[in-house]
């Protein structure tokens, strides 16, 4: 029994990070219909901001604050220079952001080199609970991720910004006739989505190896989570993230990680194919 605890905790922390990444994707996809293929790279840049912050001798918390700011600002630039010109051509956004992802990846290679970097854990200790021990940082990571997910839900469900955002998602033209500046909403949603990715990257940087290729490993599961979940912009991401993240993590205990990954992709593809509106239903299939 006790060896099951770390497994479940590992799976949960992976799910939470995945949901954080997928939430940013979902905000942009749900709001603007834009598939941002560079989202994984924005996540990666968040991790690199952390690498740089530690290289400069800044405290861990500074990196955590800097990452969403830097990546969010990058998101603002991307929205202004790229997305706003093509958001009415949804398929072209896939291609253009794909070009962006290639460029960003290579930019990081040019600056930091192709090799992987590591970030020191800010807290070294671990908690002992009965027969098993677990690193404190991972527990903090889970708590912070859960809080961020909760905060994002709160922003979109409880605030005026969220009311406007949900209106723009449901009926953009009607929202505009009521005086809502839809372009502005698109822009800030994009910035929030990218800042979330940057923050997620910075948070996981200490427990993974940071390299220029890391984005794809989160982008594809992130998208699969969105498509698997369905049902409105937010709740579906939780369910999808839990299915995709949970299955791949738990399977990896019994079969090889590669086989687990293949299995979870296939399961996700089957779900998306057989239930295009998502597990929770409610999404109009595209």
């Amino acid at each position, binding site marked *: 029994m006790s060896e099951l605890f770390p497994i479940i905790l590992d799976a949960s922390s992976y799910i939470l990070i995945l949901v954080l990444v997928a939430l940013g994707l979902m905000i942009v996809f*749900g709001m603007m*219909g834009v598939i941002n293929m560079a989202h994984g790279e924005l996540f990666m840049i968040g991790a690199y901001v952390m690498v740089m912050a530690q290289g400069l001798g800044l405290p861990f918390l500074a990196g955590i604050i800097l990452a969403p700011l830097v990546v969010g600002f990058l998101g603002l630039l991307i929205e202004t220079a790229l997305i706003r010109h093509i958001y009415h051509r949804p398929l072209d956004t896939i291609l253009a952001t794909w070009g962006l992802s290639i*460029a960003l990846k290579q*930019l990081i290679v040019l600056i930091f080199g192709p090799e992987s970097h590591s970030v020191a854990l800010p807290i070294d200790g671990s908690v002992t609970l009965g027969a098993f021990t677990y690193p404190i940082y991972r527990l903090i990571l889970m708590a912070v991720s859960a809080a961020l997910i909760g905060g994002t839900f709160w922003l979109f469900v409880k605030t005026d910004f969220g009311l406007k955002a949900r209106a723009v*998602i*449901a009926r953009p033209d009607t929202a505009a006739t009521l005086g809502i500046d839809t372009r502005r909403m698109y822009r800030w949603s994009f910035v929030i989505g990218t800042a979330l990715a940057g923050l997620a990257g910075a948070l996981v940087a200490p427990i993974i190896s940071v390299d220029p290729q890391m984005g794809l490993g989160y982008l594809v599961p992130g998208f699969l989570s969105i498509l698997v979940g369905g049902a409105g912009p937010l709740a579906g991401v939780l369910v999808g993230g839990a299915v995709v993240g949970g299955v791949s993590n738990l399977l990896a205990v019994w079969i090889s990680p590669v086989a687990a990954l293949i299995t979870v992709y296939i399961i996700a593809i089957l779900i998306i*194919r057989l239930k*295009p509106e998502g597990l929770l239903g409610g999404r109009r299939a595209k």
Partner: protein
Amino acid sequence: MRNSLIGIIVFGCLAVSPAFIGDYWTGQLSAYLVYGLLAISLSLVWGYGGILCFGQAMFFGIGGYIMAVFTKGMIYPDLTSSYLGLLAAMAGSAMFALALGFFLFAGRGISGAYLAIITLAIALVLERLMNNWYALGGYNGLLNVPPLKLVAFGLSYELWDKLPTFYIILGIVAAVFFAVTLLVNTSYGLLLTAIRTHPDRLSSLGYSVLNLRLSVFSLSAAIAGLAGALFVTLDGFASPTLIGFTLSTEALIWVAIGGKEMLLAAFLGAIFTRTAESWLSEIFGDYWILILGIAFMVSVVLLPKGLLATPFERLTRRKRVRPSSPAIAPSPPDPPSPPSGPD
């Protein structure tokens, strides 16, 4: 047919090029021609069929592995005919595409962005699978794939030299190019245009949208499989990189930069990009990929029809009469509906 005329000029230029570019570049150009064939297959399925496939290299890779397995005699030691290998590669890829296409398109099929994500995921799955399929060489792939062997009238000739290899490949690629060009100019091409723009109306006219999609998907896969099969005979080995995600996206870049709605532009997009790559990557080093990514982005935003197709279209505009019949006449597209909402 001004369109074909340009095609004939292009292939004519390619045919005389070995006289000017030397042995090394002739060898390189053979490989680029094969990439061009992959680009033609992607242009057919994406630009004409309206199916944005993010994993076109999977068919390339399947063709490559089948060719390798056959000509290395891994199935039956005496059955190493190149002809048989090429045929099996095309048939194998087409059959895989048929099965996959049926899964993807039947009933409430998947299209648009969902399709892009799913084909990307499938390409990733296949790449991982090949990396771990040890009977097929795993990560290292299959080495020592023999070159093409021509057998006719009891004579047999193995293509080890660069020049004859180049001409054989050029001949195959040109044949496929003109065959596909003819095909898309028939009523089949018209149906593809209709399926791309108004699938609903087409099905109300009694056409099976599924069958059309399956046919173009499989045909494109067969061409990609042929390209993959030719590629392994040039390179001498088949590895998981052929099937994967990187080559898929490279093909997407070639076709988008060239012009997805014009076979010749897509084909030249591959050749130019590859040529530029081997040429410019020496000058720019690691900056080349950065430049390529940015060029791709810019061409998608500013020239959605493609960098090469835009001037080509100007040249051939008079000849390209828009096919239109009352039933499938163009009309405003439905406004993009948001993927989800609180209601």
